[in-house]
């Protein structure tokens, strides 16, 4: 496991490269495109363990933090969709530089999946396969969920009566969107998220795609079908899990840093991206 910084001088990124633990040249490589904000904070240990397991299976892995997130330079409010898509491309280039000419799969979680789908159109010698885990396809709904989670944390933490907060959530569409769960969002990013609708998330025909989404995620289902109708090679896999992306989604008694079901599911699908594509 090698921590590193990479990318252009004006936009360095923090990343961690996991060389295959076998000591052999990698047979394939995986780029992990993480989620944002508290979703990233909660997923960090999971991503570390996933990377370790993949490396043990002979897969080279790069995970990284987008500009203004995690350990990367930049403030919370510096993030925007186009810049982050560029970060995915920069990370892909860094992975290829380190892993060599092997099949590469991208695995994106939540907003990371959405960014990866967009970035794949422009990435030089892009991925052979894209695995999207619980992708964010409806930005307004995502923003709504974040601010509701934010209010929920306040309610729990301060033991507050709910009605006032709920009234504010209902009356003010922008309430709690400036820094949901403590992570600042610029006005520009909030607008970009509001404009993010499934119709604007298009897959490249150059790679295969697997969409792992909760069975009740009708948006993901409809979107995958629409992409298939456009002759994109998409496989949708209903995937129920108990992992809570945010604190308020975590069910009592199931608070674990590294949930077993997603780990097994992702390992199984990322060990051999070339097979997944086929």
């Amino acid at each position, binding site marked *: 496991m090698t921590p590193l910084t990479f990318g252009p001088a004006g936009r360095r990124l923090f990343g961690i490269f996991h060389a295959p633990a076998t000591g052999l040249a990698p047979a394939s490589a995986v780029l992990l495109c993480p989620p944002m904000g508290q979703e990233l*904070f909660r997923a*960090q240990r999971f991503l570390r363990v996933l990377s370790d397991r993949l490396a043990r299976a002979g897969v080279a892995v790069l995970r990284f933090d987008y500009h203004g997130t995690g350990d990367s330079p930049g403030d919370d409010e510096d993030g925007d969709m186009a810049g982050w898509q560029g970060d995915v491309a920069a990370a892909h280039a860094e992975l290829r530089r380190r892993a060599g000419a092997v099949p590469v799969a991208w695995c994106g979680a939540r907003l990371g999946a959405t960014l990866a789908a967009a970035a794949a159109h422009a990435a030089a010698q892009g991925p052979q396969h894209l695995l999207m885990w619980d992708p964010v396809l409806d930005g307004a709904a995502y923003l709504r969920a974040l601010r509701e989670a934010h209010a929920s944390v306040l*309610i*729990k933490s*301060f033991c507050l*009566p709910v009605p006032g907060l709920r009234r504010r959530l209902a009356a003010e569409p922008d309430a709690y969107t*400036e820094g949901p*769960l*403590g992570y600042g969002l610029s006005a520009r990013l909030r607008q970009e998220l509001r404009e993010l609708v499934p119709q604007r998330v298009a897959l490249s025909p150059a790679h295969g795609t697997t969409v792992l989404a909760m069975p009740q995620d009708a948006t993901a289902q409809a979107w995958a079908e629409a992409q298939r109708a456009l002759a994109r090679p998409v496989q949708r896999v209903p995937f129920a899990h108990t992992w809570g992306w945010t604190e308020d989604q975590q069910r009592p*008694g199931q608070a674990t840093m590294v949930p077993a079901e997603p780990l097994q599911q992702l390992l199984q699908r990322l060990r051999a991206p070339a097979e997944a594509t086929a």
Partner: protein
Amino acid sequence: MTETPVRFGPEDARLMGVLTVPDALPAAPLACLLINQGAGHRTGPARINVKLARRLARQGIASLRLDLAGLGDSDAPRGNGGHVEQGVADLLAAMQLVETMTGIRRFLHIGLCMGGVYGAALAQQDPRVAGLLLFDSFAFPRRRAALALALRRIVALPFNASLREKIANALRGRIHGRGAQLADAPTPEDHAQRFRAAMSALAARGTPVLMLSSGSLHVADRGHDQLGEMAGEPFAQHIEYRFEPAIEHTLVTLASQRVFLDLACDWARRVQQRTAVAPAGAAAGRAARPAPALAGC
């Protein structure tokens, strides 16, 4: 400033961190150790450790934010010791790394929640720690503060489903036993004893301590309530005590973060000024007469 990712510690159980060094270090430089809040990542809730590291760097203070063994990007510990002993060992390795890379030999520790417990244990045994900030790390609320919390909960209960769920879970835990927890989780008495021993040692050494409590965890405070019966002990006079009712325990609001960052950076600046004029013996941790608490007590 420069930010450098680092791997360090034992060869068979490496630790991971990011070292932040200001462009220019003062004559008596300090480095701040920032660690995980609970089991979270080194960046801290709401990325607070990153924000803090960068602000401290602008004040001329270096920092290392690190994952303790078994957390974040650090390897699992190899030893069989208790979690506090392991945490202290990790922090000692962090200090060694900072000294090797920067030459800095005096340290601050800013500990969020459980992070402060490790920091207190470290500071008790290592005189290189020149200041300790404890945020919601220890609390021994007196009856008045406990009643205020109970009252708040009772008032909120009919309107707050999550609170009802929280109470139901706590009751279930008492009936059926708790789920996963630290094997060596201390009893309340052990916790208090640990605090008393650490604070007594720091008072004797004249090491500044800021005890900061959030309003979300403690609700009310009329003055040193969270020190409980220990408020009357000699070491308590040495502790700078702050209760901030608007701050939330995980710093989930941007306003909470601003207050926390201002308080922490102001405290660090005052410790920095103090250590800049302290005699070398004090820096080396020689036992000294208890110093007066810092301004703001």
